[in-house]
């Protein structure tokens, strides 16, 4: 791994009796798009706030670029944050919002104006310099928040669920844009989200957090295809238990009919009954009760089928097939109270 932009060692944070962060170690590489994924209460936002310096850790250290910053105030750290609610200054126009970081660091007026205008152009907001945040749409505010952080050219950009408030279409657009901005600017992004699809789409690596602990760190493919714990398997996508192994829903192949022929060579299969069918446009979700007693979910692309075809299949006998290579094993308890897997 390249030089660590962020290095976290045995980080702990207790609020009263609640241990929000219970011993986290992370190494985030320079220029990496790194996501922290977890449900609410998993401690991901607290870790982010500890990196930014808004909270002091109960124990442990935070290093930025090899320098211990654990005791430093937020304004002495070379990181900037994009807040969930954007936290734009309502009394300042867009240009002054973006200039703010340069102004408090005493960059001369002409230079900071030039850089702010450039930053606004990079997020495609040129022409809106004189608007107040209250006069912007959600997507535009999001871009202002991004420009306001990026104009300072921080070593690390922290993003706290920045797309959470946007509607689906805009969120997908901003995902693409975030990724391209990150590549262009070449800075490290630490991205907090509870949306597993978002984390998988955007990240170079993902850390999955639960109850203040890191469950697994890996590339999106590793986390999805080879989840280390039952929690990861359940939180990152749906996982089906078939006997003592698990298979992802899209890896299951459903064949319908009473006269079920033998399985094609090499594959695994199980017989069952369709309990529920949900037509979702591009795909259909089958909920199938296997004869073995397991209940599985299978996703099938609607290549040739239509909604009338698939909904008629409720109650039908089916054969579910999959490839052995797509099986994975996780510890038998679905959500371990105290994960046996070491925080990597």
């Amino acid at each position, binding site marked *: 791994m390249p030089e660590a932009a962020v290095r976290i060692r045995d980080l702990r944070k207790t609020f009263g009796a609640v241990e929000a962060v219970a011993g986290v170690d992370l190494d985030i590489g320079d220029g990496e798009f790194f996501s922290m994924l977890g449900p609410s209460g998993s401690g991901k936002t607290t870790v982010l706030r500890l990196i*930014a*310096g*808004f909270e002091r850790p109960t124990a442990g250290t935070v290093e930025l670029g090899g320098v211990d910053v654990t005791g430093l*105030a*937020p*304004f002495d750290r070379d*990181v*900037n*944050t994009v*807040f969930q*609610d954007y*936290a*734009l*200054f*309502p*009394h300042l126009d867009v240009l002054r919002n973006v200039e*703010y*970081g340069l*102004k*408090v*660091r005493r960059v001369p007026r002409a230079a900071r104006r030039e850089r702010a205008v450039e930053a606004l152009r990079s997020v495609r907001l040129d022409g809106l310099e004189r608007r*107040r945040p*209250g006069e912007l749409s959600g997507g535009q505010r999001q871009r202002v928040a991004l420009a*306001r*952080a990026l104009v*300072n050219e921080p070593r690390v950009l922290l993003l706290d669920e920045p797309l959470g408030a946007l509607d689906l279409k805009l969120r997908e657009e901003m995902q693409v844009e975030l990724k391209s901005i990150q590549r262009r600017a070449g800075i490290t992004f630490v991205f907090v989200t509870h949306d597993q699809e978002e984390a998988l789409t955007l990240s170079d690596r993902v850390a999955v957090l639960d109850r203040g602990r890191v469950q697994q760190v890996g590339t999106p493919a590793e986390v999805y295809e080879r989840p280390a714990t039952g929690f990861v398997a359940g939180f990152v996508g749906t996982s089906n238990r078939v006997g003592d192994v698990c298979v992802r829903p899209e890896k299951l192949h459903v064949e319908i009919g009473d006269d079920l022929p033998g399985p094609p060579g090499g594959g695994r299969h199980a017989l069952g009954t369709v309990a529920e069918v949900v037509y979702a446009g591009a795909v259909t979700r089958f909920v199938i009760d296997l004869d073995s007693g397991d209940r599985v979910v299978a996703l099938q692309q609607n290549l040739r089928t239509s909604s009338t075809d698939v909904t008629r299949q409720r109650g039908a006998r089916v054969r579910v097939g999959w490839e052995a290579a797509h099986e994975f094993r996780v510890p038998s308890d679905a959500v371990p109270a105290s994960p046996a897997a070491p925080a990597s």
Partner: protein
Amino acid sequence: MTFSPAARIALRVLMGLGLAVIYVPLLVVLVNSVNADRAFGWPPSGFTGHWWTRAMDNDGARRAVLTSVKAGVGATAAALVLGTLAAFAVARHRFFGREAVSLVVVLPIALPGIVTGIALSNAFQVVLKPLGIGLGLFTVIVGHATFCVVTIYNNVLARLRRTGANLEEASADLGADTFQTFWYVTFPALRSALFAGALLSFALSFDEIIVTTFTAGPGAETLPIWIFNNLFRPNQAPVVNVLAAALIVLSIVPIYLAQRLSSASRGVT
């Protein structure tokens, strides 16, 4: 909500009556200040500016207005500093006894003025007199500040709770130190709340009479006390009327400003 035509008319009449009860007496005061009839006969037999010129020339009245302005400005200034600090402590920090502090700060506005007056009077006699500080303008300012703090505290606290701490965090995140954050972010967000609180505080101080009675020395006669002392002297009655009329006109300005200010700040956030 929709009303039947009859109900609508009834509500309008009630509204008109309510407003009339408040504003007709004020109007009478205004008219009487230019009433040519010395005994305020009604309807006025004619109009004159004589009372106004007499009031302007009245030394006692002029001094009383000046004393009241000084007391109001002094109490408001003290309240601005103390109320803002207290509001910050309660809104932005957790500490033992936070709720108790909040209650203790707000209590003076609910205490009967007579209680505050007696308590302060005793305290001043016991503590300040031996130090050579007698009752006067200073003790009036201290007395008024005890309840003026509440208006600032409440206004600032409400604003701090509404804006939350995240703007201050954003400012620190962008590299601003504590002072820069206060100056560029916190203060602008508080400005209209401070102004509205200060107006209210000044108005409270300006017409206060009970606490003032107990804390003012002979040299510090505020306007309400002067009016009260002169109210029953037939000779001064027209001057008292003019002062009342002037105060009515003067109060409209700050109330109008305060209303516009609070509606403007709602529009921004």
